């Protein structure tokens, strides 16, 4: 039963489909309604005016983004609701190239005078950067060409998540928490729903103009069991992922039906045994493996990292552009695809923040590095003539830069189930859920934990464990991958909070994968020397 429920992870949301890359694609009723109701559309002329002013001031390229970013959080703790939070950020960000340098200004006070002033300030700033770049003898900004587009795209959805009253959301969460706390031994339950809406219009000096509305929703549910007498506690967090979807995704998740199971997991974890550390197999459920993909493959295939542009904070990459086509990253069965068109994917869009159409391409094929994530000003560094469409900014006031698309491990052709992977394992640990995660700045050494852990002995799950982490080197880890689940085991997970850049910006991104088997150093993190 436990395995069956672990496999019943969240499926892609109903109504999800490939995004429409052209303005002529018909919009369904919900999408059409969202566009008609958009408050941003009425300010589109201001974005056009900003671009015109920037060009007049001397910009060789300009783009203006009007972005209304809304987020709502409804959360409860045990039988008590917390205050509802609704945040809105709205404004215009204008980005320009002048004299070969980038400039950017963001404002919230929107008037014709204000946007013209912002555009002129951005151009003046760009000229300063261009002058310094030239004095240093460094290459000036060079943008890859991209077709001009006019279009609209809205996340496929049935219900705008902001149309559901917070009290109804809280009521559902309170019922879920009550069900969790019915399990003897569970002392605390916490749950929340977060909804984000990103309504944005992009206008470029090349003639592109796109209007997109993206809905993202995410549940959270955690149970905590406390051993007050001896001192000690254990928490378990449900693995239902965030999705690019409307309220219907959360409505259909059946969290209430999962509550009791989660409570029992927390109690079982509190009393679970210790792992015998050592180099052994780990069978990773999709709810755990997605984050390992994100950190060990997603980040090192970001071209800005490989070029040294993120060296001060996020770090660089062990992968180098001149190793494209030759660096063996994993075993021959490992195939990782970048995809900004994936249904339900949190990084799925119609176009990126440079009006480049969303697409899909290989990053790792047959275990070999074959592709990179790029933007328009990076493509030429690896001899490509077009951007992969990975430019994104958080809100109107973030400077657009290279951000991660959905990066997913493709299912294996053998059609393995999770049981197949476990049955084939003599000595190992089966791990589900996202736990503590950490990786070095070049993405070699990582250590991840999880939410639930089961010892595997002679092809069977034998006992629950706690305080387990697995540590490995990225290439050794992926090279040890010898079993990958089939299509039926593929699940999509993701995060709203992929941090990168200076000043730090958040990106929402998903990673799909089946369960897979690897070798890793399994650690006992209990700290108990006995």
């Amino acid at each position, binding site marked *: 039963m436990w395995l069956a429920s672990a496999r019943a992870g969240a499926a892609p949301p109903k109504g999800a489909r490939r995004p429409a890359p052209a303005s002529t694609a018909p919009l369904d009723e919900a999408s059409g309604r969202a566009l008609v109701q958009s408050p941003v559309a009425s300010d589109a002329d201001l974005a056009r005016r900003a671009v015109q002013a920037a060009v007049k001031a001397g910009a060789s390229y300009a783009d203006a983004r009007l972005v209304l970013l809304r987020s709502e959080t409804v959360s409860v703790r045990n039988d008590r609701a917390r205050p509802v939070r609704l945040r809105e950020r*709205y404004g215009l960000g204008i980005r320009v190239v002048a004299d070969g340098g*980038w400039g950017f200004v963001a404002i919230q006070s929107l008037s014709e005078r204000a946007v013209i002033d912002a555009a002129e300030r951005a151009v003046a700033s760009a000229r300063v950067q261009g002058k*310094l770049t030239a004095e240093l003898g460094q290459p000036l900004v060079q943008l890859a060409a991209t077709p001009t587009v006019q279009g609209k795209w809205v996340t496929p959805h049935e219900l705008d998540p902001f149309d559901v009253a917070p009290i109804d959301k809280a009521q559902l969460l309170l019922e879920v928490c009550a069900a969790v706390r019915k399990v003897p031994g569970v002392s605390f339950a916490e749950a929340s729903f977060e909804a984000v809406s990103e309504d944005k219009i992009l206008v470029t000096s090349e003639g592109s103009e796109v209007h997109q509305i993206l809905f993202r929703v995410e549940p959270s549910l955690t149970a905590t069991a406390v051993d007050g007498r001896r001192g000690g506690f254990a928490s378990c967090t449900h693995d239902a992922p965030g999705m690019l979807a409307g309220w219907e995704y959360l409505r259909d998740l059946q969290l209430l039906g999962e509550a009791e199971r989660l409570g029992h997991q927390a109690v079982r974890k509190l009393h679970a045994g210790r792992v015998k550390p050592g180099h052994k197999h780990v069978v990773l459920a999709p709810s755990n493996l997605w984050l390992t993909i994100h950190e060990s493959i997603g980040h090192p295939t970001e071209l800005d990292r490989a070029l*040294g542009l993120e060296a001060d904070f996020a770090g660089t990459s062990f992968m180098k552009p001149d190793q494209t086509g030759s660096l063996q990253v994993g075993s021959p069965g490992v195939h990782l695809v970048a995809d900004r068109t994936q249904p339900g994917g949190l990084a799925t869009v119609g176009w990126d923040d440079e009006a480049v159409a969303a697409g899909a391409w290989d990053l790792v094929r047959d275990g070999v590095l074959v592709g990179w994530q790029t933007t328009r000003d990076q493509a030429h560094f690896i001899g490509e003539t077009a951007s992969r469409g990975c430019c994104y900014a958080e809100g109107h006031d973030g400077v657009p830069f290279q951000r991660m698309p959905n990066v997913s491990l493709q299912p294996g052709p053998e059609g393995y189930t999770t049981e197949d992977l476990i049955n084939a394992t003599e000595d190992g640990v089966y791990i589900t859920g996202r736990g503590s*995660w950490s990786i070095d700045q070049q993405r070699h050494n990582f250590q991840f934990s999880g939410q639930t852990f089961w010892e595997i002995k002679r092809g069977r799950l034998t006992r629950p464990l706690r305080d387990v982490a697995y*540590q490995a080197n990225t290439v050794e880890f992926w090279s040890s991958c010898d079993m990958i689940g089939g299509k039926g085991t593929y699940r999509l997970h993701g995060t709203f909070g992929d941090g990168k850049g200076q000043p730090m910006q958040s990106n929402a991104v998903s990673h799909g994968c089946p369960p897979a088997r690897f070798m890793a150093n399994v650690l006992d993190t209990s700290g108990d020397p006995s």
Partner: protein
Amino acid sequence: MSLDKSKAKRLVELVLAQASFGDLRVHITSSQRGHLRFGAGRPTTAGDVDGVTVAVTASKDGRTATVTGGRTDEAAVSLLVQRAEGLAGLSPLDPEHMPPLSSSRPPSVKAEDSAVVKLRPAKRADLVGRAIRRAEADKVSTAGILQHEHVSEVVGNRAGLFVHHTRTQVSLSATCRTEDGTGSARSGYVSHALAGLLPERLVGDAAERATRSQLPMRRDPGRYPVILAPQAVADLLAFLVDGLDARPADEGRSAFSRAGGGTRVGERMFDERVRLWSDPADKTNPSLPFDHEGRAHEKVSWVEGGELRALHNSRYWADQKRLEDLPKPSSLHMDGGTDELEALIAGFDRGVLISRLWYTRMLDPQRLLITGLTRDGTFWIDKGKIAEPIRNFRFNDSPLSVLAKLVALGKPQRAGLSSGRVMVVPPLVVAEFELASVSDAV
């Protein structure tokens, strides 16, 4: 938009005048922020962002909602208040809602520097250009960011609360990497004042350490005596500040929970030389004098003589447990000695010098066990001297253990790469630290 005290007062009054609820609080932040990034020896992106956030929290009959917007004209704030009150009506009961604060007396904190207020793109380019040229001269590549901000913050409510604060902050961080890719180091400056920012010195320091860290040797993982440079200490103690929360401690979910119930306040947990305190009015390193509810930050001693003295709390928890109202601090200071890092090295027999930590994550909140990696300069010390650079390690250890196993403390200094909470901490010599595995990352 600059928001001096009189303008802030008028804006708060404008918001409160729209309210129909008796319990309504407004928190306004107005800012001008700018930055210039650089990487691979050239400027990359630059930005100037003018922003304002108006957060209105409305509460009635135990139902509370917060709505945040970005406009300050009368029509906009009127709509914002209406939406907050409307959303509160649609919100569930919050039994932990506390009545509004009627007054708060935050300390007077001077944290505004006119030189930072006047920073413009040309000055940014001058500072960054100097940093890049110094790196070129030292034959290293550099990447980093110069950031500056001028921020006004105000909290007011219908019960009479009004607190206001204006601050500046400027920071420069630069990572230098050697041409062969085997050496790396990072230096940082952060302060409310521009005067101490010397790009050449900052980059020169990073370049020197990067060069010294070239071609690192491999040492086996294990438990080693270590010297933690101030930035590494700050990276670890950040978890301690978050962990000093009274409620999870009372509820048995914290490293500060006492087995059998209650908290560990009053217990000697650390080396007797450990003294941790916070003070927003510190003249050299000022920090925020109040939190988002308007609660005043005072000078607080959290650990004295190695004994846990206090935990921070929410207003609700302070009321429930009859505790002193102590918000999470905006700064952390740790007492130390007079020795600079170099003097600590000279007195250290054998072990590892750690410059900073990276990708730190909680492994076990019960023991405040943290994992992460060393980064940007890890060295083997032998007989009081840096013997050789060594490869980075992953560590699994706890600030609780570090503070209990102190050998020596150096001279406290501001951690230049910690730009959120003000952290002023000494370098520490620690008897043992768990370096669990080797990382090939540079």
